[in-house]
């Protein structure tokens, strides 16, 4: 792939990242502004940034002739894209546009580190066909959906804390009621778990050469077990809403903190660099 093409498509991601930064700033303002219409702008700003983000992935995919997850840079960009995609679906569906104020900063940070670090290295692409692309896409999409569940969990914990402490700040009026937050958080959590499970399951059917990638397999197993346990206790009604939200957030913090490192260490999930 030509260098100019890489520079060109990175520009779209750079612009998208600026858009997410603006969305994060506006979202925080909207949370405290007490202006009922302010949240709509957060959603529109994120939508505009998402369009540029999508354009980046499209151009990169066209250029490499492959789903753009061939190096850590692309993987992070796809990961953050799936987070925004989930927000754009969940936000209007549950009248939760306010979640954009929580989504935008996370996406900005992921993209910022992806752009800043020297990780956009051209790779030689394996020819393993659709099972590999579907496995990677579903896994990353699942992580994105779990991210939105965690962000709804953060919103729940903030609202719950205000109600518990009897301190009603301007955020209290802007954030949705805890009933709706817990509903969204738990539904999205279950969907995220199912999508992630499907992606991880597909991984077993991908033909590969050489030894198994035990680092990534162990990490995926830990993440899967953590969320499986959470979904099961949720179904059994054994956990308070607060603890469910806390565990959902903690699980995602674990993913965010380890994702980069694990993908760097992982052997089968890093394609050899060109040249």
């Amino acid at each position, binding site marked *: 792939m030509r260098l100019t093409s890489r520079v060109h498509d990175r520009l779209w991601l750079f612009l998208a990242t600026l858009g997410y930064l603006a969305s994060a700033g506006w979202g925080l303002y909207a949370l405290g502004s*007490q*202006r*009922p*219409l302010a949240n709509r702008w957060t959603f529109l700003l994120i939508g505009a940034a998402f369009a540029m983000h999508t354009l980046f992935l499209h151009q990169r995919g066209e250029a490499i002739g492959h789903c753009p997850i061939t190096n850590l840079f692309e993987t992070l960009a796809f990961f953050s894209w799936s987070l925004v995609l989930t927000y754009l679906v969940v936000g209007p569906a549950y009248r939760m546009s306010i979640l954009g104020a929580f989504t935008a900063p996370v996406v900005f940070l992921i993209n910022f580190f992806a752009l800043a670090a020297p990780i956009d290295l051209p790779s030689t692409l394996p020819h393993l066909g659709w099972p590999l692309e579907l496995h990677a896409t579903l896994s990353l999409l699942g992580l994105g959906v779990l991210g939105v569940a965690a962000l709804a969990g953060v919103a729940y914990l903030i*609202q719950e804390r205000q*109600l*518990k402490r*009897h301190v*009603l700040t*301007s955020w*209290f*009026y802007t954030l*949705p*009621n*805890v*009933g*709706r937050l817990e509903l969204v958080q738990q539904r999205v959590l279950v969907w995220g778990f199912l999508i992630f499970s499907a992606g991880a399951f597909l991984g077993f059917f991908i033909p590969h050469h050489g030894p198994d990638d035990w680092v990534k397999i162990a990490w995926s197993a830990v993440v899967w077990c953590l969320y499986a346990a959470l979904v099961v206790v949720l179904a059994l*009604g054994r*956990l*308070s*809403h*607060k*603890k469910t939200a806390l565990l959902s957030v903690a699980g995602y913090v674990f993913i965010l903190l380890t994702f980069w490192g694990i993908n760097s260490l992982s052997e089968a999930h890093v394609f050899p660099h060109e040249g």
Partner: protein
Amino acid sequence: MNSMGAHVICGGLTFEGVPVELREKVAFRDAQLPDALAQMKKMLGLREAVLVSTCNRVEYFGATTQPDRAASAWPDFLRQFHAVTEDFSALSFQLRGMPCVEHLYSVASGLKSMVVGETEVLGQLKDAYDVAHTHGQTGKWLNRLFQSSFAAAKSVRTRTAITRGHVSVGSVSVELAAKIFGDLRGCRVMVLGAGETSERTARSLLRHGVPSILVANRTFDRAGAIASELGGEAVRWEEWEDRAVDVDIMISSTSAPHYVLTQEKLEALLRRRERRPLFLIDLAVPRDFEPSINLLDDVFLYDIDDLQSIAQTHLRERQTEITRSMEILKPHVERYMEWAGRQTGGSDADDLSRGLVSA
């Protein structure tokens, strides 16, 4: 003033300067309004007239070429129509031109209400205008004035926090319940004891969609009486703990000298409940619910001081929004004044803007 022009004027009595004992003597019932409007229009020399009568204000709005006549005839009209002897001239305010427009816009926006930001007054203004309009007592001046005041009020409501936050114990409780459960139509409520505030709070919840209420009292007959008033079900005191398993909101105001619900008792109750939040409203002094209950997950406990403190905070916050609301109203007022200036060929624009204030 040329023949094409007219002054928009207003005046009347409000809660700010006139006690309720006097206001009630000159309040107009809905059925009286058409006759009153016709008489007022004639006596005050108005071309157009709207009469607003609420529990907090009795005011007229008019368009006239004789504003001084209207101001002086208003107290006589009140005396004559209501057959009272009091002299209201010193108690009535009179405004014309821009101050009158600003006054109506402020009233419509709830800025001049006893409880700042309340929205009921907008409905009352709309009703008063409808009556006048239906009876042919309005024309281009007041039609435009009132319609633009409704738009201005909407703008203030959507762009400020003037209506945000409730300012009574009952409405704060409803607001909190809505922030916990969302839709109150699926909520089950239990009232323990028979306090007046708890009854009012229960009524507020009923008005906001709660389908039914359980009432438990040490005296079963008293529980029955309250339950029938609220359209709920009376529960024997010894049964309330069992029935509380299915309840989402509990309001308590018993006169018990000890905690009616301790943390230990509630933990046992929560184990029998589905995993749902529980909103506890303790209106009793001494308190009925052990304060440490609030430490339990999914339980939200508020006592009377918490609720009153929130109501006071809301009221203070609304007060701070008045300046911002006035800024929002400014362009609306200017637009009306420009339009009014155009109607009089511009010759009266300055005169209109100056206004006249007397008390």
